[in-house]
C-alpha cells in the first residue's frame, strides 16, 4: 500500500518535471538566443532593437496561435499567408472606396477592420467546410486555397501593388507604430490573442475537444463529439487570427501586393512546432507557440546584426538554429 503510494508519487513527480520542461524549453531557447545576440552585438539589447524584434513577431505569432488549434487536431492550414495578402488587399480597396464618400475618418478604418474579420471567418469556414464535408486531406484543400487567395490578390492589384490612400495612411498608421503605456500596439494585440487562445484551449470544452480529436480521431468521434463541427470551428478561428494579423499589418507599409505574406504559413507552422505542439496533434502549447514566434524573429534579427557569417549562408544558419532549438528541447525532455 505504502509502496504503491510512493511509486505513484514518484510517477507524478516525474510527470510534473516532464511537463514543466516541455513548457519551459522554448523559453529557455529564447533566453539562449538573446544571450547569443548580445554577445554578437551589444546593440541587440537596446530598447529600440528589442521592440522591433518583438513587434515583428506579432504577425506570424497571432497567426500561429490559430495554427496551434488546427495542428492540435492533427490538421494543417497552408493558406494563411495568402489569406493575409488577400485580406490586406481587400481592406485597402475597401478603404480607398469608402474614403471618397465618408472622408478620412475612423469609421472607415473600423468598417475595414470589420470586413477583414468577416473575410477571415468566411475564408476559414470555406477551408473547414471543404475539408470536413468533402473528406479531403487538409493539406490538399489548403494548398488549393493558398493558390486561390494568392492569385486573387495578384488579380486585384493588376499584378502591381495596392496602396492605401495617403490621408487614410496617416490616420491608420498608429495602429502599427503607436504605443499604449509604452508598449507597441501590435505586441498588446499579440498578448491579448495569446491569452484568449490559452483560455479557449485550456479552460473550455471546445479546447478539450480539439485535443481529443488530435489524440484519437475515432475515439473522439465515438464519444459523441461533433468532430466536423469542431474542426470547422478551428479553421474559422484560424481565419479570425489571420484577420487580426492583417488589421495590424496593413498600417505598417500601407500596401499589399502578390508578395505580401509570402512564407508566413511555414513560419507560423514552424513556430507552433518549435513551441512544443506535436505535429500529429493531441497536445498543444499556446505559450510555447508565442516563444516559437519570438525565436523566429530573433534569429532573423541576429543574422542582420552580425557580419561574422556570410550573408549567403543566412538560410543555413537559420535552419541550424531551428533544428538545434527543437533538438535541445526534445532530448532534454526524454531524459
Amino acid at each position, binding site marked *: 500500500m505504502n509502496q504503491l503510494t510512493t511509486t505513484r508519487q514518484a510517477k507524478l513527480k516525474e510527470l510534473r518535471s516532464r511537463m514543466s520542461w516541455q513548457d519551459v524549453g522554448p523559453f529557455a531557447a529564447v533566453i539562449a538566443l538573446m544571450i547569443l545576440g548580445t554577445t554578437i*552585438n551589444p*546593440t541587440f539589447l537596446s530598447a*529600440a532593437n528589442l521592440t522591433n524584434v518583438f513587434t515583428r513577431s506579432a504577425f506570424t505569432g497571432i497567426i500561429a496561435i490559430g495554427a496551434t488549434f488546427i495542428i492540435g487536431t492533427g490538421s494543417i492550414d497552408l493558406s494563411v499567408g495568402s489569406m493575409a495578402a488577400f485580406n490586406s488587399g481587400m481592406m485597402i480597396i475597401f478603404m480607398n472606396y469608402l474614403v471618397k464618400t465618408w472622408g478620412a475618418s475612423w469609421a472607415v478604418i473600423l468598417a475595414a477592420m470589420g470586413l477583414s474579420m468577416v473575410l477571415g471567418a468566411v475564408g476559414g469556414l470555406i477551408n473547414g467546410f471543404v475539408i470536413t464535408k468533402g473528406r479531403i486531406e487538409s493539406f490538399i484543400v489548403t494548398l488549393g486555397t493558398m493558390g486561390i487567395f494568392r492569385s486573387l490578390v495578384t488579380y486585384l492589384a*493588376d*499584378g502591381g501593388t495596392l496602396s492605401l490612400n495617403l490621408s487614410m495612411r496617416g490616420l491608420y498608421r498608429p495602429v502599427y507604430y503607436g504605443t499604449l503605456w509604452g508598449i507597441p500596439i501590435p505586441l498588446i494585440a499579440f498578448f491579448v490573442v495569446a491569452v484568449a487562445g490559452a483560455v479557449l484551449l485550456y479552460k473550455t470544452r471546445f479546447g478539450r475537444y480539439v485535443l481529443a480529436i488530435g489524440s484519437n480521431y475515432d475515439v473522439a468521434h465515438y464519444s459523441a463529439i461533433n468532430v466536423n463541427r469542431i474542426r470547422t470551428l478551428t479553421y474559422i478561428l484560424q481565419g479570425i487570427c489571420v484577420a487580426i494579423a492583417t488589421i495590424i499589418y496593413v498600417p*505598417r507599409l500601407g500596401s499589399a501586393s502578390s508578395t505580401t505574406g509570402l512564407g508566413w504559413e511555414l513560419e507560423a507552422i514552424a513556430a507552433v512546432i518549435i513551441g512544443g505542439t506535436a505535429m500529429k496533434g493531441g497536445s498543444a502549447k499556446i505559450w510555447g507557440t508565442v516563444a516559437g514566434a519570438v525565436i523566429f524573429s530573433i534569429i532573423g534579427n541576429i543574422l542582420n546584426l552580425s557580419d561574422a557569417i556570410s550573408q549567403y549562408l543566412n538560410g543555413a544558419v537559420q535552419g541550424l538554429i531551428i533544428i538545434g532549438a527543437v533538438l535541445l528541447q526534445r532530448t532534454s525532455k526524454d531524459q
Partner: protein
Amino acid sequence: MRRTIVVLTVLTLFTLLIAPAALAQDKVVIGVSIPAATHGWTGGINYWARVTQERLKNTYPNLEIILVTAGSAAEQANTLEDLYAIHNIDALVILPFESDPLTDPVEMLKMQGVFITVVDRGLTKEGIADIYVAGDNHAMGRVSGEYMVEALGGKGDIVVLRGIPTVIDNYRFDSFMEVIEGTEINVLDWQYANWNRDDGFQVMQDFLARFPKIDAVWAQDDDVALGVIEAVKQAGREDELFIVGGAGMKEMIKRVMDGDRLIPVDVLYPPAMIATGMEVTALRFVSNASVLGEYILDATLVTPENAHLYYFPDSPF
C-alpha cells in the same frame, strides 16, 4: 430541291469558314509571350504589353497582335507551340521566364521561319534572336554608384540592400562596388532584401539599430526602397540620410518629381522595354526601316528635372 438546299448550306458554311482564313492571310500576326503578372515589375510588363497591343492595332490595321502570358517556363514553352500551330504567327516577341529552358522552343520557331525578338533575358544560344532589347543591369549598378559618389562628395558610410541572389543582382551589385572602390565611401554592411517591401523594412530596421550613423542607402529596387522609407521614418532619422532605389515605380518617380529629400533620384530599369520590343518588331513589317540588331536601353538617372518624362500614373507599377 432538298438536295439543292443541303448543297447550298454546305457551300455557304464552307465559304464562311474559309473566308476569314483567307483574309487572315493578308494580315501579319505577331505573337507576344510574357510572364504572368506575379510582382510589380512583371505587372508593369503586362500593362505596357497591353497598351502597345492597342496602339499597334489601331495604327496598323494589317497587324494582328496576340498576347499570351505564362506562369512558368514550362507553360511558356507550351504557349509558344500554340502560337505557332493555332495562330500561325509571323513574328514572336518574347520575354523569357528563364533563358535556358526557352532557348530550344524559340529556336524551333526560328527554324519554321518565324521572326524572333527577345526582350530582357537573352537566350543561351547565339544567332536565334533577330532583335534583342534589354535593360542594362551593369549600368544600373554603375549609375547608382556614380550618383552615390557625387552626392556624398566621395566620402561617407552607406548600407546596401540587395535583391534575390541571382545573376541580375550580382551584375548590379558588382558594378556598383567597382564604382565606389577607391573612394572613401564605406559599405557598413549589405543584406539580401529579396526585392520585397517587408524584407526591406525589417533589414533597414536592423541596420538602423546597429549603425548610429548612415549617410545613404542603396536599395537597388523601388519596392525595397518603400520599406526602407517606413523604417527610417519610424526611427525618426529622415534628416540624416537619402535612399537610392531603382526600376522606375510610379510612386518613386512621383517622389523624385516632388523633390522629396529622402528620395532625390531613381534609376530606370523600365518595364516599358516590352513596348520597345513590340514597336521595333512591328516596324519590320510596316516599314522599310532597318531594325535588326541589339538595343540596350540606358539605365537613366531620373532627377526632379526629367522625372515628368517617366511618370505614368495609369500604369500599375
